[in-house]
């Protein structure tokens, strides 16, 4: 008992020190940091940004609009998850099929049972190949999605045509 009494102040001191250190160091992840869709300024100020990239996500609906248009995202919309997954697949297929040619985001608009995909394409290949790729993409996607898919492309001569600013 005497021993315990002697030890007590030390214990208290140790306990206090522990609580202090715990409150002083914050070890959990920083939750307030938002980085997605934002681009760093380079030292040479030569990073090209499109209009879409130049406006961070909180400007969606103010300065820029959505890339996916469908009714799943409204309140009580049906199959939101399936639509999101399908959109990811469509985007991956587009960027892979039109490799290094898509200069903008892939815009997916759904109306009833049709899917309309819009994008800005670089004029890197001949018109004939482009027509083939359009047919190929529409055919395969409509087979997978089980609905008509339409490609609505706009072409630009150079990649720099879509650049909005350099940072």
């Amino acid at each position: 008992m005497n021993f315990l009494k002697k030890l007590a102040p030390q214990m208290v001191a140790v306990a206090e020190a522990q609580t202090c250190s715990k409150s002083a160091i914050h070890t959990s992840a920083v939750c307030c940091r938002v980085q997605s869709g934002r681009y760093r300024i380079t030292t040479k100020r030569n990073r090209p940004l499109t209009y879409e990239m130049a406006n961070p996500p909180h400007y969606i609906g103010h300065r820029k609009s959505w890339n996916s248009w469908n009714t799943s995202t409204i309140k009580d919309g049906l199959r939101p998850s399936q639509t999101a997954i399908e959109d990811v697949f469509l985007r991956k297929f587009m960027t892979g099929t039109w490799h290094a040619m898509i200069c903008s985001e892939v815009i997916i608009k759904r109306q009833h049972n049709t899917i309309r995909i819009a994008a800005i394409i670089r004029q890197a290949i001949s018109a004939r190949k482009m027509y083939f790729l359009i047919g190929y993409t529409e055919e395969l996607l409509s087979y997978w999605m089980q609905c008509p898919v339409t490609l609505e492309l706009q072409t630009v001569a150079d990649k720099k045509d879509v650049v909005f600013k350099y940072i």
Partner: protein
Amino acid sequence: MSANLTRWLERSLHNCHATQSRTALRLFSGQQQQQQQQQQEVEEDEEFRVLNLRAVKKQVAARREIKRDPVPPPRSNRMAVDQDWTAAWPGPRSFHPASVPLPLRQGYTERGAAAPSKFANAELMKIPNFLHLTPPAIRQQCEAIKQFCTPWPKGLETEEKCKHHFPVEVVTTDFCHSLPTIRNPEARRVTVSLKLSELKFDAHAKDKFLRLVGERYNQETDVLTIVADRCPMRKQNYDYALYLLTACYHESFITEPWEETKSEADMEVYHFERNKAKLSAEAILNWNEAAGETKVAPSQGYAKSVEQLINEGENEYNIAKYKKEVLKMLNIPVAN
């Protein structure tokens, strides 16, 4: 066997190397001859030339230029001012700058700078456009479907006439969405509403009907609303709602034997005819009358004022009316 084979292979490989080195030698000698010829040429020209000790580099083959078809100018430049726009843009489509002869701009820029033009502008492609629904296009389509229209039925010109002939109102909702399915579980809901004054009731039936429908009746607007959503299909719900309406209406006219046992304590409203107030009033009015003479009944106005006083509660208006009726019934002149 295998050892033999490998040996043979090695030998053949060796032979190969030998032939290659021989050809290389021959090449070297050929180069020497060329160089001698070139030196002679230089002496003849009598001009300084760069002494190239190393092997003369072969001319680098010029990069093959990729032949590109010339991109035609935007179609909108060639469009006539009075062209048929419905033919140029027949259906819903994402915006295309070369097809729209409008100097559109879209996008936010810093103050003073012009907004991004329509070319290579993804924002214009994102937003839904109604270029296919210009007033001429709508007019054209209306003209086209006119042949399928039937004339408006006679006698239903105004809203009142419609209400009179079709008192039951059925409300359903159709949902359009951008999905591979056309079904929506919310579409099954059916709302049937009608004014209760359209139905014919007697006092007992109306009371019973109101008790049966409960909260579905709105007293302020006199509208009965039946919402059916328990079946999976709209047709089933519609049938069920109409069945409910019919069943309630016919049920209200049936008087069950136990309904006769309703006592004064069960009454939901005060009835003058069934109560002591009527007897008391009659007793006062027929004071000292011999039996056999016609009894004087209390007036309708008095009965109504008593009912109002008890059903609606005591307020200034009801009490004043009651007082007036009592004075009138007892023939007491009002002292102003």
